[in-house]
């Protein structure tokens, strides 16, 4: 479980996050949603430590990440997997080398065991036999799947996904969503997904946190979000003509 308690974050005079307190549960797909510029990416970057916070606490299963030493943070980070918006695969490495990289850096497995683990991860994301391909040879959906495979290679306890289905066609986006959801439940990972894709919200939103102008505005799940009377949520969820008609 990851808990954020009264997080504040400013860039110069501009306060991006205001007293945000939210909990992300284990074995669930926890979604952070909100309009562009609402602060959801900043919140995620604060959670993983890419941005320092001005005040508040970030707890990973009760361990205060925000006040840890570099060495302690390093240990926690080996329990974290992250899927970046663009995949962030190392473009000078093959698919196999990309997935094997965290195992080489932190594991003490033999080469054969590492290869077995890579094959298992690739199989899990339905990309068998892609081992020797370079990232430049992959499609958008394949890049995301390899990035998921890399993120789960070290058996993480926490998985962060920054807009995992941006730039993908609806079918592939759905496939990625379902894959993340399955992996979350299978390995009992605490998954945090940053998205503004309504299909993801309705499909896999076990817990949903709506960020509005830097504040936590609403919390719920995929069932309650469609029934809420909160005007800001409705404005966000039913933004298109189609969704308004469906409502």
């Amino acid at each position, binding site marked *: 479980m990851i808990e954020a308690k009264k997080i504040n974050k400013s860039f110069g005079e501009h306060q991006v996050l205001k007293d945000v307190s939210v909990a992300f549960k284990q074995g669930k797909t926890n979604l952070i949603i909100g309009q562009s510029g609402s602060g959801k990416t900043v919140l995620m970057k604060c959670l993983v430590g890419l941005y320092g916070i001005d005040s508040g606490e970030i707890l990973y299963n009760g361990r205060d990440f925000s006040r840890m030493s570099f060495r302690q943070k390093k240990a926690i980070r080996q329990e974290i997997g992250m899927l*970046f918006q663009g995949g962030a695969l190392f473009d000078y490495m093959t698919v196999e080398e990309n997935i094997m990289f965290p195992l080489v850096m932190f594991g003490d497995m033999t080469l054969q065991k590492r290869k077995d683990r890579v094959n298992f991860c690739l199989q899990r994301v339905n990309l068998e036999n892609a081992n020797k391909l370079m990232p430049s040879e992959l499609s958008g959906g394949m890049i995301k799947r390899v990035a998921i495979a890399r993120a789960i290679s070290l058996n993480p306890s926490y998985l962060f996904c920054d807009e995992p289905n941006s730039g993908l066609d609806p079918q592939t986006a759905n496939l990625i969503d379902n894959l993340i959801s399955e992996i979350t439940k299978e390995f009992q990972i605490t998954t945090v997904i940053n998205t503004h894709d309504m299909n993801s919200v309705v499909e896999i939103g076990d817990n949903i946190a709506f960020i509005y102008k830097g504040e936590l505005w609403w919390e719920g799940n995929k069932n309650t979000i469609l029934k809420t009377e909160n005007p800001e949520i409705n404005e966000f969820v039913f933004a298109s003509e189609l969704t308004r008609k469906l409502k």
Partner: protein
Amino acid sequence: MNFFSELGKYLLLMKEVFTKPDKARVFFRQIFIEFQNLGIDSLGIVIIISVFVGAVVAIQTAYNIDSPLIPLSMVGFTTRQSIILEFSPTMISLVLAGKVGSRIASEIGTMRVTEQIDALEIMGINPANYLIQPKVVAAVIINPVLIIFSMAFALFGGWLACVITGMVTSTDYITGLQGWFDGYTVFYALIKTSVFAFIITSVAGYQGYQTRGGALEVGTASTKAVVHSCILIIIFNLILTQLLLV
């Protein structure tokens, strides 16, 4: 003020760069990859430039010696001194600042804007150490080797020019090359080269690492890396010459 701010950021980055590598085996493998990327891949251009400049230095020296009181072997001697003391360590380092510096800055800058550096950080790896330290160490070791090749090929270029033009005989040129040789000049050249290698790789690494934005900013970082490295090489050339030769 901007200068001090940049200097402060550079020194803080260097503090991160020169920490113990996360995995020694990976670090040594990276060094060998960088030997190839920064050193062996630059050998071609180093040889071509050295041969031609060596030839030009020899011809210009021969052209300027018109007194019958100065022996023609002085062409070999002057060419050797010019090549070892200045041309090979400084000029070739300036060329490498362009070739290697821009490569490092654009490589690391692209990794920054495509979130690959963030990915390393999330994994618990020190990205500055992992990306920059092997490049600095490799360049400090391999650049002096390149400079020794440069010296050899430049002196060969000078000999070739003398023989082809007939301005100086092969015997005179070689006699000049061998005369009044002081091994310290080579030591001085290699020390300079190592310092310049450190400047090129660390400044380019810093510029790449600080990149924010997109393709345009990667280009700007690459240009800044070359310009700043060249200026620092020229300044440190003067400082090292004063310290080591005077």
